[in-house]
């Protein structure tokens, strides 16, 4: 125990595929099957509009920045399905607590994106990256950066926002009733979601592929991985937050800060830009 | 032209389904779902008219934005009323809500 190995995650993933697959008896069949793939699909859809380098984007939508938010909204739908389907108390409580988180963080995802789009004067993700050529948004709009990062961690239900899948308190919560290959899909989907949100942070706030010397895709990858590592590690040092606290902080502190962010960015664009 | 017709037909059918739902259901939440379907059908028609007949007039899209806002607001106030009613009476069945007391 305690030694880091490269093949560790692969081995446990393969082991999970091989494990026996229990299913709860009176489950809601449709939702039970659909929830993990829906989580994966929503993460992939959000990733599809994020550029790795100037030409390397799956779908260059004219409203790319908004589409990221739209795709992430389906994370909620997937978790709601996963919470309801197994017909088990712990799963349902997990799903509904995630709703509490959702009400707290959903504004905090969209408002920083608004401020970013204001600076770029466009919703196209490639133009958002290019607008940061002079100065990355993390420095230009630090409030928005911190809020988006925290809200991103809440979307991925990472610690300290991991009430839906709390290992200690809710015996695994939403994940509890999934076993075998379905759990593998669920966990894979959650990891893809983390990477997608990290990529979104790097595109919106860290300047995507911009940077000297190295090729663009290397910068994108490096920034995405750095943010993902930050998101995954940060929660270990903070106790888990109850959704009531998340709601309180989100609305009493977060929303005024987000509005202040938009106001300040607006003034700066008018005065400086 | 075929696309316009297709969209309008879809709007018509959705509206009919929504109307059936709004009239036949007894529970407030289900009635609201019927109303949401009707508003959705109206939006489909609005977007079809905008796109195929007057794509240069953006007041059409503005109208759709307002309808979306109305959908959200009507849900919010409707659920607030449902919450109040549930606290007072223990259910939100509209059959029992015939008199003005309570």
């Amino acid at each position, binding site marked *: 125990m305690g030694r880091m190995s490269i093949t560790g995650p692969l081995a446990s993933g393969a082991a999970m595929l091989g494990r026996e697959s229990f299913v709860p008896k009176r489950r809601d069949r449709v939702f039970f099957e659909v929830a993990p793939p829906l989580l994966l699909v929503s993460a992939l859809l959000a990733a599809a509009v994020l550029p790795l380098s100037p030409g390397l984007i799956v779908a260059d939508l004219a409203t790319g920045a908004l589409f990221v938010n739209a795709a992430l909204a389906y994370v909620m739908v997937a978790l709601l399905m996963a919470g309801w389907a197994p017909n088990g108390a712990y799963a349902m409580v997990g799903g509904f607590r995630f709703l509490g988180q959702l009400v707290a963080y959903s504004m905090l995802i969209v408002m920083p994106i608004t401020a970013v789009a204001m600076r770029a004067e466009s919703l196209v993700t490639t133009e958002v990256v290019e607008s940061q050529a002079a100065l990355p948004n993390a420095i230009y709009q630090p409030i928005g950066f911190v809020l988006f990062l925290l809200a991103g961690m809440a979307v991925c239900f990472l610690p300290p926002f991991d009430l839906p899948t709390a290992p200690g308190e809710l015996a695994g919560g939403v994940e509890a009733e999934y076993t075998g290959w379905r759990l593998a899909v669920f966990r894979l989907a959650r990891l893809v979601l983390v990477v997608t949100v990290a990529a979104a942070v790097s595109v919106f706030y860290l300047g995507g592929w911009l940077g000297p010397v190295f090729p663009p895709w290397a910068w994108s990858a490096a920034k995405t991985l750095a943010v993902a590592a930050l998101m995954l590690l940060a929660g270990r040092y903070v106790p888990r937050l109850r959704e009531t606290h998340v709601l309180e902080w989100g609305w009493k502190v977060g929303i005024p800060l987000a509005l202040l962010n938009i106001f300040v960015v607006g003034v700066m664009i008018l005065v400086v830009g | 032209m075929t696309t316009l017709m297709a969209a309008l037909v879809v709007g018509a059918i959705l509206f009919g389904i929504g109307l059936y739902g709004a009239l036949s259901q007894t529970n407030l939440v289900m009635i609201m779902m019927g109303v949401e379907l009707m508003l959705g059908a109206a939006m489909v028609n609005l977007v*079809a008219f905008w796109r195929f007949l007057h794509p240069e007039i953006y007041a059409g899209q503005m109208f759709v*934005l307002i309808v979306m806002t109305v959908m959200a607001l009507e849900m919010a*106030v409707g659920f607030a009323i449902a919450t109040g009613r549930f606290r007072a009476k223990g259910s939100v069945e509209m059959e029992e809500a015939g008199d003005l007391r309570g």
Partner: protein
Amino acid sequence: MSASEIFQPFFVGIFGLAAIWFGVVVFRTSSMVRSALALLFSMTAIGAMFLAMEAEFLGVLQIMMMATEMAIMAIFMVMYMMDPGGMEGMDMTHQKYASIFAGILATLGILAVVFLVEWGPVAEAAHPEEQTRMLGIEIMERSMLIFETAGVTILTAMIAATAIAIERRKS
């Protein structure tokens, strides 16, 4: 026929059929959560129709808003419905035949208008980026008053909803 002339009716039709099918499921299923999520997917299909009709901003907005709204509706259904799982098979409708009649009458009336009116020529739409910009200009210039009124209305509705739903203090 160009590619878009073949694809556009196809996609609008497919998403339209999906919206209709999910709409029917809303009222046919006895499980409440399935009902709410069927409505969610019906609304998503409507959003996809907007995307197929080249109204990109509206489509993305519809998809985004409806996911959150309908998920919240699902929660409320579980709170307020007597049989959220639909396991007991109650029939929760009244005046069923009158409603079916009204629904079919409305649909036929609208279809009559659709097929009997001469709609005129079909015009070209602008590129999606242009559209978002033009919509913004429309909001900020001509429709500014409408938007401000909508903003105040939203605020009023928020305050009203909170006021109605808040518990009376025992004082």
